């Protein structure tokens, strides 16, 4: 049994920080990431547009509860299943794949750096990029969707049920990045074309509600659906897309998602340890 206290945790933390800094620059400043910015911006344009249009109407076309319901639909159908999903595909599959294609992976592999530490550093960088981008997007679109109600909306957000909803939407956004990030990080290590695992996993996530209870737990949206603060009023088979037949409490859903993500990252670390650099692909 190794003595954990004797391990160079300080050095590893510094190395994770350095890798993350280096990678964040690439994630944020790359032109290739432009479509991810647009993906994050789209719902903000939608909700802000809605609010502007509503503010010019003499009579409000909807109420605050209706607007929060609309946002719940945007969050479930756009953010979780498209925006954050494909944003994480773009960010996390490229953490290793892009370096292999650009033939620069060897610079990391030739540094005195454990490959597990490299993996963690890259994952952290992806998390920083995805979390910053999508929490800002979710926060902005939530805060603007009913901004035309003025003081009433501000009071709802600051003192009413809105604050709880707002915080939980941000928590679910972060957890979505954690889960999808882990899945697409390992996908980028295994598949040459990231769209193949993205499509396969999307199908898996889509049919997940119809699968046996055990298999449902091997999913990211299973945990996220249970944590969403506002349930979308959808009936029939489509309801399984946005809510679980047996909702999982938060105290179980959050550790459950984290455990699934850690297990995937563990497998990714094993994969990175065996990764060879020959650039023959």
């Amino acid at each position, binding site marked *: 049994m190794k003595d954990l206290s004797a391990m160079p945790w300080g050095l590893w933390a510094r190395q994770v920080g350095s890798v993350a*800094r280096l990678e964040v620059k690439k994630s944020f400043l790359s032109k290739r990431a432009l479509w991810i910015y647009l993906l994050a911006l789209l719902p903000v344009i939608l909700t802000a547009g809605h609010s502007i249009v509503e503010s010019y109407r003499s009579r409000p076309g909807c109420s605050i509860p209706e607007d929060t319901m609309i946002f719940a639909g945007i969050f479930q159908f756009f953010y979780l299943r498209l925006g954050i999903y494909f944003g994480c595909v773009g960010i996390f599959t490229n953490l290793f794949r892009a370096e292999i294609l650009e033939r620069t992976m060897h610079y990391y592999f030739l*540094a005195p*750096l454990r490959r597990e530490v490299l993996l963690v550093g890259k994952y952290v960088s992806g998390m920083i990029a995805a979390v910053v981008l999508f929490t800002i997007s979710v926060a902005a679109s939530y805060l603007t969707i009913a901004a035309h109600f003025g003081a009433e909306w501000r009071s709802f957000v600051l003192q009413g049920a809105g604050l709880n909803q707002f915080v939980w939407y941000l928590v679910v956004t972060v957890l979505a990045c954690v889960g999808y990030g882990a899945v697409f990080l390992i996908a980028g290590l295994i598949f040459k074309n990231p769209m193949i695992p993205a499509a396969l996993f999307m199908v898996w996530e889509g049919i997940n509600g119809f699968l046996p209870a055990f298999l449902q737990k091997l999913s990211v949206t299973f945990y996220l659906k249970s944590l969403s603060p506002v349930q979308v009023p959808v009936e029939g088979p489509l309801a399984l897309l946005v809510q679980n037949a047996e909702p999982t409490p938060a105290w179980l859903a959050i550790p459950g998602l984290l455990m699934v993500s850690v297990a995937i990252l563990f497998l990714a670390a094993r994969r990175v340890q065996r990764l060879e650099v020959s650039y023959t692909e």
Partner: protein
Amino acid sequence: MTPSGDLIVFDNVSRFYGDVLGVNNVSLSIPPGITSLVGPNGAGKTTLMNLMTGLIQPTQGKISVLGIAPDDPENLFRVVGYCTQFDNFPRGMTGYQFIYSFLRVQGYTEQEADRRTWESIGRVNLKEAAARKVAGYSKGMRQRIKLAQALSHNPRVLILDEPLNGLDPMARAETIALFEALGAQGVHVIVSSHILHEVDRISDQVILLSQGYVVAEGQIQGVRSEVQDHPIQVMIRCSNPGALAARLFEEPHMVEARVHDDRHGLMVRTRDADSLYLLLNRLAADAGFDFESIAPADEDVHSIYQYLIGAEGAAA
């Protein structure tokens, strides 16, 4: 320290790429100093370098670099620097950022990374270009910045895959001088190159590779003696080469004798150099031959390389 603590050891190492042979049954012990890997394209030079740095794993056999296994990068790259053939760089970086960033990744503090970055950039004379993007560098400058990066943590083992490619004559001379200085300090400098006369000049030992096999290894003269059937060429400068050629052909070990165009010299090939030298001594003393100079003409890597691998390999 283990017995192999100062050596790079390959123990019966093979590496296949699917059905394609990379290297086969390689057993080597590489001591400090400058070691050259010589062979034509596809001989296995880069495969050997990638194996000793863990970029690829052996199909069979064991490798140890100063007692450290290549699958332990955390310890290995504290003592090893590898300048690969890959001519790609992380996008958007200046020369300074390229070296500094990876020193930070190694765990150096900002101050120490900055100091080491400038030191290594100075060693390859790129200080003036340090603030420019690497993407705008010439081939030779890119080669030098890669070398600076491999040197930046003062490794005990420096592995260089075709390091002289793209360098102008001045930079080439400076780089060779740097290798020689490092070799003299006891650093393992392992170089692969097609530029044989340069490799020949700087090497303490050579490893000749062909089609994935080590065909000869050791000091240049030692490698030379391994090749028992290889006729030795000796250049003789004298006043009457025609008569000397006629006399030499009486000896059974003689293979060839060619008179120089200027009629003042003779190039001979023999299978027994010792007998040739004794005979020349006798001819000088007893038969009145007047020798201006007698010198081996082929105790260099190039001639052995040509002999072992053939003209096709030598031309590569």
